[in-house]
């Protein structure tokens, strides 16, 4: 062997730092140097080099190096296993592991077991995880605490929380990672009280632990408590030197549609110095869009230093939901120009935008382009949007063709879209045909039944009408009650249909009456067809009067700063009458009113709505 021109120490360090920096050129140069000086087969270089290639995302080079290597020991296997485990196809690590054991007969060590278990976590396979666990217990490394930590994590991720706890309890000296894995396991599996109990037992609670707890809560759907925990965390002395917890809690406020909380968090993000974080930026764009403040969403988006597909898509979907179809399409063009590849969700947003603006040709073009230009197979949601697009604009034959030829079984939404369009076009035989199909699906939405009943009535099929009404009566009991809420920062208020909170009762009713008078002068007529109960006309009008979104808007008018936008969130689709009323109110009061309902956002301004009366 030629004499060493450099002592091995700095070279290994150089390799490690190239790996950390993911510097491919440096890795290759160092490899060349190692070859020329004959050191490439001398430990620690084989594994250090492999590791470097893997981190620099030159996985095939790493693999090649491995295959060419004359001496494949546990260290080398470790390096490659770890690399494969972190790749986008972690199952490759499993096949390599099998080869290690059966072909090269290399016994796995603690590190390899840990990697194996982590791979199972990433794949999400409980079955494989248990096999790995069994092998681990049979090996001489069965007391390895690092592997046990990984097992806790694996069982949690595979939703076997009690198994995770069993392993957790076997660890004599639990380290921080182990504790956090268990807390995270409980939290993300919805076991809140156990998560909290264990959390408060931890010897030390750092940002990592808090984050695991908070994001676990969020994952299992408890956004409210996640935020409360964040407030709690802020009271402790924990420094936020990682932005993940912030993006989690911004996500929670999206979930809660809590704009004011989102704004407070935005302030915190800026004050902490995270304004350039792309992930936080994306979370903020989404938060503002979901909380109905599309202008702020756009402002954050425009301020993003770096944008990825999530940034663009979030913004496109936001614009689409706010009825800004041209804005959404324009963004899409810019997105392509910026070289960012759209994904499934981008197209859902775009086609949705087109269907709500009646842009038929554009919508169809996009639908075709999805598969042809971007290799994305349309999903049922995409087809539903397409059906909506075609049927709303009267292309019923085309729509029927699509629904019959699409590669998915049409659901309630698909048939419903077609049926309401058919009915509008007064195509009775087709309507009845559709109605039968829809009825056969045993629909769940009450408004579907109204649609069906009216369809059959128009066709004179009274028996069907009767049976539909009967089903409707049975359904009525389970109908979700309507409620609206309004968030004014320091206070928020929830309104249920027909109920007015005692404190504001008089003012709200008085205001609504005043507005009603003014509206009548301007030609408003209540539309009682929205009321589904079989009651007197008078009573129907009364019921409409007390719809929750009106109460919320009245509250907003009374309590908010004059001139500001009133934002209301409703859990159900806004009814036709309320939609009309709110247009009038926006005109009379000169205020902008934004209502988020089950489907989209309605921006009411000077008597018009951004949805174009097309929701």
């Amino acid at each position: 062997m030629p004499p060493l021109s450099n002592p091995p120490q700095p070279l290994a360090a150089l390799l490690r730092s190239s790996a950390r920096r993911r510097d491919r050129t440096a890795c290759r140069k160092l490899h060349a140097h190692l070859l020329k000086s004959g050191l490439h087969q001398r430990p620690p270089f084989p594994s250090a080099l492999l590791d470097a290639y893997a981190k620099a995302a030159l996985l095939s080079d790493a693999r090649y190096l491995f295959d060419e290597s004359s001496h494949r020991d546990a260290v080398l296997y470790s390096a490659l296993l770890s690399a494969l485990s972190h790749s986008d196809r972690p199952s490759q690590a499993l096949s390599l592991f099998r080869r290690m054991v059966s072909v090269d007969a290399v016994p796995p060590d603690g590190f390899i077991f840990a990697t194996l278990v982590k791979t199972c976590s990433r794949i999400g396979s409980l079955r494989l995880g248990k096999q790995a666990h069994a092998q681990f217990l049979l090996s001489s490394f069965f007391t390895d605490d690092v592997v046990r930590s990984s097992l806790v994590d694996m069982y949690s991720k595979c939703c076997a929380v009690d198994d995770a706890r069993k392993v957790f309890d076997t660890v004599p000296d639990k380290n921080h990672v182990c504790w956090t894995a268990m807390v995270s396991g409980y939290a993300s599996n919805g076991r809140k009280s156990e998560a909290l109990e264990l959390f408060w037992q931890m010897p030390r609670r750092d940002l990592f632990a808090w984050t695991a707890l908070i994001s676990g809560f969020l994952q299992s759907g408890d956004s409210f408590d996640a935020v409360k925990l964040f407030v709690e965390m802020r009271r402790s002395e924990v420094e936020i030197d990682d932005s993940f917890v912030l993006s989690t809690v911004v996500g929670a406020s999206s979930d809660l549609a809590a704009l004011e909380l989102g704004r407070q968090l935005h302030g915190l993000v800026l004050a902490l110095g995270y304004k350039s974080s792309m992930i936080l930026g994306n979370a903020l764009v989404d938060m503002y869009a979901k909380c109905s403040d599309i202008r702020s969403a756009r402002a954050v988006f425009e301020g993003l230093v770096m944008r990825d597909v999530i940034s663009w898509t979030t913004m496109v979907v936001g614009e689409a939901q706010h009825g800004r179809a041209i804005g959404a399409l324009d963004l899409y063009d810019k997105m392509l120009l910026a070289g960012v590849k759209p994904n499934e969700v981008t197209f859902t947003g775009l086609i949705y935008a087109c269907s709500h603006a009646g842009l038929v040709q554009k919508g169809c073009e996009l639908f075709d382009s999805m598969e042809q230009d971007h290799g994305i197979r349309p999903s049922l949601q995409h087809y539903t949007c397409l059906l909506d697009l075609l049927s709303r604009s009267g292309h019923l034959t085309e729509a029927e063709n699509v629904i019959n030829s699409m590669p998915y079984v049409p659901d309630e939404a698909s048939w419903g879209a077609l049926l309401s369009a058919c009915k509008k076009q007064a195509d009775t035989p087709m309507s009845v045909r559709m109605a039968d199909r829809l009825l056969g699906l045993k629909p769940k939405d009450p408004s579907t039944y109204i649609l069906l009943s009216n369809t059959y009535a128009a066709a004179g099929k009274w028996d069907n009408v009767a049976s539909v009404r009967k089903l409707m009566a049975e359904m009525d009991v389970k109908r979700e009650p309507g409620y609206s809420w309004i968030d004014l920062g320091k206070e928020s208020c929830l309104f249920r249909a027909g109920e007015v909170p005692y404190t504001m009762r008089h003012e709200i009713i008085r205001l609504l009456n005043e507005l009603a008078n003014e509206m009548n002068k301007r030609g408003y007529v209540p539309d009682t067809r929205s009321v589904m109960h079989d009651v007197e006309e008078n009573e129907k009008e009364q019921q409409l009067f007390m719809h929750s979104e009106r109460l919320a808007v009245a509250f907003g008018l009374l309590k908010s700063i004059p001139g500001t936008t009133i934002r209301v969130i409703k859990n159900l689709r806004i009814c036709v009458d309320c939609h009309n009323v709110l247009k009038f109110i926006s005109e009379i009061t000169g205020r902008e009113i934004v209502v988020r309902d089950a489907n989209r956002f309605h921006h009411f301004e000077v008597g018009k709505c951004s949805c174009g009366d097309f929701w």
Partner: protein
Amino acid sequence: MASVAQRRASNLLSRLLPRSLLSRDRGPLARLTVAAMEVSHPAAPPLPWLFVARSKTTSGSGYSPLNDPSPNWSNRPPKETILLDGCDYEHWLIVMEFSEDPKPSEDEMIGAYVKTLAAVVGSEEEAKKKIYSVCTTTYTGFGALISEELSYKVKGLPGVLWVLPDSYLDVPNKDYGGDLFVDGKVIHRPQFRFTERQQTRTRPRPRYDRRRETMQVERREPMMRGTSGQNHRGKPE
């Protein structure tokens, strides 16, 4: 069958969506319009594909990204209002935008802060009294003690990027952060420079973030983060 396809599609969707874009299964996929509404004008003839077809009435609404049945999007009202500590809707964080070239000096920026606030409170005298914190490094903005109503007026002023409800940066010490601003004078406070090196390189990140494994784009944070600092407030002198 439909539910299988739906689940498959929404699984794919949920893997690609950031967590916050996901929604919880609320039952039916879409809300259909009450088609009780009769067409108030004669049905328009089917329009050729080239024309923008607008229908004036409501019809079936099909799919909405808002109610995509994927996990974790609750449409339940909040049980109570949650406020961050220190947030009282009287303290406001006002962030301003300055040109990069040339970049103004600290004094110039602070001058701009005072002028901006003066435009809504009446005079620079008054503005100086109302400003309780300033910052020209981590962010370019100031904290002002004004009513919510006035805060809305600030939003429209030139150079103002954001007007947000301020809250404690250092909660245990009830401190809003930034440099103190007293009698028109800046009192600098020790700042903690947050650098890339001190980032959680040694500390393992919380493992949950499945989307990182399926995102099509660079997973790395931009290096620009390294220059932003974290204002770490020590105990007031």
